């Protein structure tokens, strides 16, 4: 019997959390909106806790349309936790705003959409999850209701709609080619005998949607503008939550549904990975606004993450590698955004003397930015190491070389931010601009997690199942 509503308990909790947050917020006066924040945080936490009993599960439910396996479990743990950190970052920035509750509701819905994206084992469900996670993102980007927020929202919405058309068309084509089956298990069997050109067109269509979601080339255009235009907590969410869901969805699609002998998707994904990381890094070079710099850095990071997708199903440890990197990336990237939220400035030079004003914040910035470079012993180093190893193991040694060269290049722009932050201007101790506590706490917490991540996350990776459920 595979129809068990309780199997979807974490997802249901997120949905219920979104509804009750909305209702709570609607009936509360503006100065008491923090109750809605607590409800949202509680829902996210409950989703994480509800996942724990189901950690070892390996099955699919609802006619093979939703998988419960290592990938989904990781998504159910990581994505709500990332959402929780976003709520923490938002605590200082959106508190007291008229639409504070809306922010939390949209966050919960975006988290829910991303989790469904990661767990979908059926093209139709994938399309639904895509839409469910796209609409809240546009809302979040425009949450501030200012000129730049409107631009950000429009970009996210239009590019998302365009990519969504590709995804829907691709899904329809693949379903037709697979003999009318849309769940990955039967799709894989159906596609094995299908004409490869048509399958390739369908794969490219579906991939277009997912590339938009994760902000990889060619669907990366919205990332810098949206991050710059949206509020900082929204930017943190836009560059973390959908990436987690989208990358797991892409991994699942390729590892389970599309046979590599029909379409040479590994090469396609590998080339996309190489282009994405290179473009992200080189575009980040010239940025003076820390938000745009971080946005391009997330594009580059997706390039490294796609390396694990490119060897999906071919390298023994591709899935653990992807999960370790995703966890490290989420924590480290949110840490960098938390620093940004704690002390927002428009140019990198404004961070001059941060080490003196706020030594803890500066230390966090050092750990997070060097972590994003992949300096040991941070969590992203663990991710990079495992992903590089998996990619080489899967026969993509050239891609590993490209990624290593890119890593050196990336050091350059991260240092452009670190150098002013660590420089010590002479003169009296500068005044400390007011800074909300929420982001600062999140920043330091994520920095500790990022620093100890390699030691903590990696032993867990050994326990991860290496294949996904059909």
């Amino acid at each position: 019997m595979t129809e068990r509503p309780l199997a979807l308990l974490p997802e249901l909790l997120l949905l219920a959390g979104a509804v009750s947050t909305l209702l709570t917020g609607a009936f509360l006066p503006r100065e008491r909106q923090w109750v809605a924040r607590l409800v949202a945080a509680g829902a996210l936490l409950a989703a994480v806790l509800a996942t724990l009993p189901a950690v070892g599960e390996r099955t699919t439910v609802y006619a093979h349309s939703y998988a419960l396996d290592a990938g989904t479990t990781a998504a159910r743990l990581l994505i709500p936790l990332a959402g929780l950190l976003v709520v923490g970052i938002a605590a200082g920035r959106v508190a007291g705003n008229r639409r504070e509750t809306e922010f939390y509701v949209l966050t919960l819905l975006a988290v829910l959409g991303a989790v469904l994206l990661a767990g979908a084992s059926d093209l139709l469900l994938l399309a639904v999850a895509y839409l469910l996670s796209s609409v809240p993102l546009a809302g979040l980007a425009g949450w501030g209701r200012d000129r730049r927020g409107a631009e950000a929202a429009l970009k996210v919405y239009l590019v998302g709609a365009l990519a969504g058309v590709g995804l829907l068309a691709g899904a329809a084509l693949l379903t037709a080619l697979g003999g009318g089956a849309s769940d990955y298990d039967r799709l894989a069997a159906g596609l094995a005998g299908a004409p490869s050109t048509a399958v390739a067109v369908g794969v490219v269509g579906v991939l277009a949607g997912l590339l938009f979601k994760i902000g990889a080339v060619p669907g990366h255009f919205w990332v810098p503008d949206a991050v710059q235009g949206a509020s900082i907590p929204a930017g943190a969410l836009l560059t973390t939550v959908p990436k987690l869901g989208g990358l797991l969805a892409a991994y699942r699609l390729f590892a389970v549904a599309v046979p590599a002998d029909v379409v040479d998707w590994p090469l396609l994904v590998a080339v996309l990975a190489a282009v994405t990381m290179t473009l992200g890094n080189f575009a980040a070079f010239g940025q003076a606004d820390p938000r745009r710099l971080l946005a391009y850095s997330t594009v580059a990071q997706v390039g490294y993450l796609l390396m694990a997708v490119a060897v999906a199903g071919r390298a023994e440890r591709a899935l653990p590698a992807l999960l370790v990197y995703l966890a490290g990336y989420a924590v480290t990237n949110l840490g960098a955004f938390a620093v940004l939220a704690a002390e927002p400035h428009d140019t990198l030079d404004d961070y001059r003397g941060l080490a003196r004003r706020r030594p803890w914040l500066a230390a966090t910035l050092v750990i997070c930015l060097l972590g994003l470079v992949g300096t040991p012993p941070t969590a992203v180093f663990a991710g990079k190491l495992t992903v590089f190893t998996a990619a080489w193991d899967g026969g993509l040694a050239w891609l590993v070389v490209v990624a290593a060269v890119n890593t050196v290049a990336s050091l350059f722009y991260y240092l452009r931010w670190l150098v002013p932050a660590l420089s010590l201007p002479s003169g009296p101790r500068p005044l400390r601009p007011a800074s909300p506590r929420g982001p600062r706490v999140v920043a330091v917490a994520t920095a500790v997690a990022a620093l100890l991540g390699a030691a903590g996350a990696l032993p867990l990776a050994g326990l991860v199942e290496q294949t996904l459920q059909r």
Partner: protein
Amino acid sequence: MLSLIVFTPLAVAVLLLCWRGLPARAVSWLWIAVTVVEVVAVLGVWWAYPGEGFAYEVDRPWIPGAGAGYHVGVDGLSLPLLALTTVVFAACAVYSLRRQPRPRQFAALFLALQTTCLGLFVSLDLILFFVFFDLSIVGMYAVIAGWGHGPQARRSALTFFLYTFLGSLALLLGFIGLYVAAAPHTFDMVALTRDPPTRGVAGALVLLAILLGLAIKTPTFPFHTWLPPAHTDAPAAGSAVLAGILLKMGTYGFVRIAMPVLPDAWRRHAWVVVVVGVVSVLYGALVALAQRSFKRMVAYTSVNHMGYVVLAVGAAGLVAGSDAQARAVAVTGAVTQMVSHGLITSALFLLAGVLYDRGGTYRMDAYGGLAGDTPRFAALTAVAAFASLGLPGFSGFIAEFQIFAGSLGSAPVAVAFALPGILVTAALFLWALHRVFLGPARHRLSATADVTAAETAAVLPLLALSLLIGVFPRLLLDVVEPAARAVTELVAR
């Protein structure tokens, strides 16, 4: 035991960072106390070392999924470098007494750096090695960027960081290549040495990546360009650690990883290493000869001295037509040279720091006649310079003699080309001494500018140890020789 030695400095560093109210004097003395305890601890390890093979091994799973473990241990190759590290860091601690701005952070940084250096030399796992290798770069970047002098300090630090980071990633690529080629997949050096995984073209490519990484760190010609600016702008203690310890990480990598794990590729491409070594020897010596700045000159002699090491390890790979004993002598000479160069060059850089502290410049023309005004400084510098140019009685002579004697059989032409390097080095040091210490005075320093007790206490032990090894080389060679023979056999299989 080893873990305790490695991580104690880091623990004290964290303590120092958190304890804001600690007075500067207490910081200095705490720092000195920790480094001296480290020296004693490593001497104890040396004392109890059985003489052959790995001792004090600890092998714990660390990243079971990725095949990396926390595997540490010492043998005849790492033990001398471990001792060298503690001695040089102790000298830096003594030298920095009442000297640096922000002493608390400076001491914490150096203690953390000491952990990375010690950790690297005891690592028997490639990932552990890489972690310490990379962290040493970050630490040294902070030293140069934070405490460097000169208008270019940040730029030099950035060059250093980018350049050596590139090297470390090349190294990582090589390590991943080894991991993927090994069956079962592992990063463990001992397992990889037991069963060398790669052959043919793949082996050559992996060796290329590893050589690139190590050559940048060593540095050898043509990858040395980060070195002079980094040294020029680093604080004296930073330069001493950079030249004395960090450069050794590259050459240590040759004997610990490249030679035993890739014997096939090493034998086939040893001539490349020999050529690079000879070019480094000559190029380093000639460029050093042309320098006007005392510190830059010492920096370039490092390229020269590391060139001898590279020449020796290359010659040890030319198996055809040479006997095993000679090759073992070459490897012994290489390790001795690492220790010797570490001691002498650290002393020279600390002395260069004294010069800058008193005169405000490294330009040798700005001084002259210092021998009369600051006799103790002149004596120490002269001794260090003579030790560095390979005078018999000092460790440098023992090392270079062994390198040439061991390499002559397998690479006679290379040795013939490299020999003039010694002559040039002798000339440049004598000329430098001449310019700084003899002739009419062109400075305004008085006798009060002479070295202080703390500075003497920092430099003198380094030179004394060099003298000790020069006079009683067996103290060192008894430990190094069995390990060097083992490496030679591993390469020849």
